[in-house]
């Protein structure tokens, strides 16, 4: 050893530190685990439906296996680093030179191969399960189309009778389980512009919405509850505010909601409506029952039945609605909804009209 190495014999303390630096990590791990199990709205460890539940089970299994490997390998590493450190001032000769060991090297090639093979089989089973679901569940099926836009979700409930089809935005309603039977919700995923990704963590894994392709995914319904979701693929300026809600509700509530959504708009505010129709709003927005037939922006027919504005950017209440109409950029910078530079009077009229759309 040269002089340069003489000054660096603090091996013992360094190694104890190396071992103790894992303590904070373990604390974090424990904190994380309790946090994942708490009432967080998007935790993948709180599944509420298939296939999210079977994915969680797979996750726990893989976490167990990799966790065991982690403890084992990290343990051997820290043990070796502590046990075999050179004492300060030591003038020991070089240790025995071990060039390798065929049995050992074969062992730690074959063992991981076996683990990996088992994991592979488990994953294949899980993929099939998550994709196809439970075949002997012969409950009803709800088919919904989800179309991704920069930066909002168009939701279409198709129907064999075109008059009964309707569209809404950023809020997907599904019926909850009744009489032990779940409804299988099948989504057809499309994109109007760039790639988006549909993700409601507590219901299912994510599936991309790809322009020019049609993707499909499914989940089943459970208890009445509201689930939070969001776009998971970067899709431009306002990717962050492309959120959605999935509302699972009792059969009767769902039926009432559907019937209401199907109806054209009924409003009581003709002055506001006239102003709305006279301004540029109609180039982008549809209000069924009026001449507004734009398709670039969300359908506003029953706007006030929705909980959020601008794809979850803010709550849908009077103040936020007013702020949104007056200056979308203050709520969602970069949003495709332009600032129309409306006068205060116009804003009041438009807001009044929109608030009548229930």
């Amino acid at each position, binding site marked *: 050893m040269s002089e*340069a190495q003489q000054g660096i014999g603090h091996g013992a303390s360094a190694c104890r530190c190396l071992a103790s630096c894992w303590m*904070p990590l373990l604390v974090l791990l424990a904190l994380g685990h309790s946090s994942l199990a708490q009432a967080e709205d998007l935790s*993948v460890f709180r599944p509420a439906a298939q296939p999210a539940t079977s994915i969680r089970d797979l996750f726990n299994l893989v976490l167990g296996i990799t966790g065991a*490997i982690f403890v084992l390998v990290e343990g051997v590493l820290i043990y*070796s*680093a502590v046990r075999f450190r050179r004492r300060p001032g030591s003038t020991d000769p070089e240790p025995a030179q071990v060039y390798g060991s065929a049995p050992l*090297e074969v062992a730690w090639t074959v063992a991981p191969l076996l683990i990996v093979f088992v994991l592979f089989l488990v994953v294949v089973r899980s993929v099939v399960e998550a994709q196809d679901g439970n075949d002997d569940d012969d409950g009803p099926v709800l088919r919904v189309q989800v179309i991704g836009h920069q930066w909002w979700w168009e939701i279409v409930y198709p129907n064999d009778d075109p008059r009964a089809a309707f569209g809404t935005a950023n809020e997907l309603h599904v019926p909850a389980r009744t009489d032990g039977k779940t409804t299988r919700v099948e989504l057809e995923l499309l994109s109007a512009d760039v790639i988006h990704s549909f993700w409601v963590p507590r219901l299912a894994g994510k599936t991309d919405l*790809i322009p020019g392709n049609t993707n499909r995914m499914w989940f089943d319904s459970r208890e009445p509850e509201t689930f939070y979701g969001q776009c998971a693929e970067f899709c431009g300026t306002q990717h962050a505010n492309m959120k959605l809600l999935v509302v699972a509700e009792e059969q009767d509530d769902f039926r009432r909601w559907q019937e209401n959504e199907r109806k054209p708009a009924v409003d009581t505010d003709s002055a506001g409506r006239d102003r709305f129709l006279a301004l540029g709003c109609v180039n982008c927005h549809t209000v069924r029952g009026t001449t507004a037939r734009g398709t670039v922006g969300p359908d506003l027919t029953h706007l006030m039945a929705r909980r959020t504005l601008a794809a979850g950017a803010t709550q849908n209440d009077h103040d936020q609605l007013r702020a949104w109409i007056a200056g979308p950029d203050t709520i969602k910078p970069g949003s495709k909804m332009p600032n129309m530079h409306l006068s205060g009077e116009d804003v009041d009229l438009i807001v009044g009209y929109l608030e009548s759309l229930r």
Partner: protein
Amino acid sequence: MAVWESSAADISPPAVAHAPSWATTVDHKQIGILYIVTSLVFLAVGGLEALVIRAQLWKPDSHLVGPEVFNQMFTMHGTTMIFFVVMPMLFGFGNYLVPLMIGARDMAFPRLNAFSYWMFAFGGAVTYLSFLAGGAPDVGWFAYAPLTEYAFSRGTSTDYWILGILISGIGTLATAVNLVTTILTMRAPGMSLGKVPLFVWMMMFDGILLIFALPPVTAAIIMLLLDRSLGAHFFDTQAGGSAILWQHLFWFFGHPEVYVMALPAFGIISEVVPVFSRKVIFGYESVAAATVAIGVLSMGVWAHHMFTVGMSDALDAIFSGASFLIAVPTGIKMFNWIATIYGGKLVLASPMLFALGFLAMFLIGGLTGIMLAAVPIDWQVSDTYFVVGHFHYVLFGGSLFAIMAAFYYWFPKATGRMMDERLARWQFWLMLAGFNLTFFPMHIAGLLGMPRRIYTYSADRGWTIWNQLSTVGAAMLAVCFAVFFWNLFDSVRRGAPAGDDPWDAWTLEWATTSPPAPYNFEQIPLVRSRRPLWDLKHPEDPDWEHES
């Protein structure tokens, strides 16, 4: 043999090595240092970008920078760290060390080597000039079409990204060819391919990997450029182009690229761990073979970045299985490194500390990689902060820890001076703590549903505390790098003289002066084994008696 046996006085070093200007050098050592210093500058810039990201995410509903700047920051951070920091930094070490380690006087094509460096520097400059031209790229380092098509990305920022990557890619490909040629043709007599240091072995496969992986992404980038400027429709979905095609071409490069950044790091660890354990590497052959296996497998796993695009179950399963398989050769390396430590007499100098940090952190990245390779788990956690945590454990906990080990290990060779050990220790512990504090909570945020690349989040989602821990960790990392930069700067001027072989190491670069003369060696020691200097120092028990 005559060349190596000449004395220094008989050899006139190449005239250019004496040129006052670094701008005209073709000496591999100067080019290596240019690479390293330039990528250090980019490291500082990329780090600042990361700090902006972390500052913005400190609290929910933050208005610090807004979406435009945030999107530019994460795009430039990723692009910078991958193309202008980690890869060129490793090339810098490769450039500096490969000829020295194989007993050559320079790279096979010295002028091409200089050209490579200047292409890298120019490519980086072009990418950053976008800031002056109306805005930096804001489409992510992966630049998914059709978001990068002109319809969705107006202005010139994406064009700057394309040109910057294209230009530096030319340099990268030339370096890859240069490395492979140098290693195949310029080894000292007696140094068969089975006797080259493992760092050299891994740099060679790095080059081979790049030669296969770069052309597809180069083609893709040119296709995107054609789409944007000449109205072609390769990725223009409005006109029948494909959005998925870009992903296949991009990840066909993008996944091997991970190993392009990991293999030289593995090489560094394979040099540092034996020297500081005072043992020969355990299982040289299986470490080398694992390198080949990783190289081959890494070409066949690209679609595991695409499990959510709606491929068939069969394809998902195949790519999942192939990804799992990579764990096997990677595990072999890990076990061999630990076996090298086991039974050694560890010298816990700074290079070894960072190497141990690498082993401990990279393992975590590898294990979360196994989770991600399990398709259904990927459906949940892909494009969340879980993935951000995962790949930072691989690339920061892996490559960057190894790069730090390399700095402390080879700095004495390149400058003739030692770096300060006390500062090194400060840096190491700050880095280990800051790194875990920054990136471990990201796994949890991801499992709590936090997507990547969002500039803001609302308070009701339960992500705040995890983001705050990350941001505090990032601040610690900033201090850690300040310590590192100061140590570099100060040690160049005032470091203790190092001597030729301060670590009592065994590979050929330590057989010459520190810093080496422009022509590298006066005399090459006889190469009969993998550790020529061990043979010199231990004539009673030379390596060649143990090697097959």
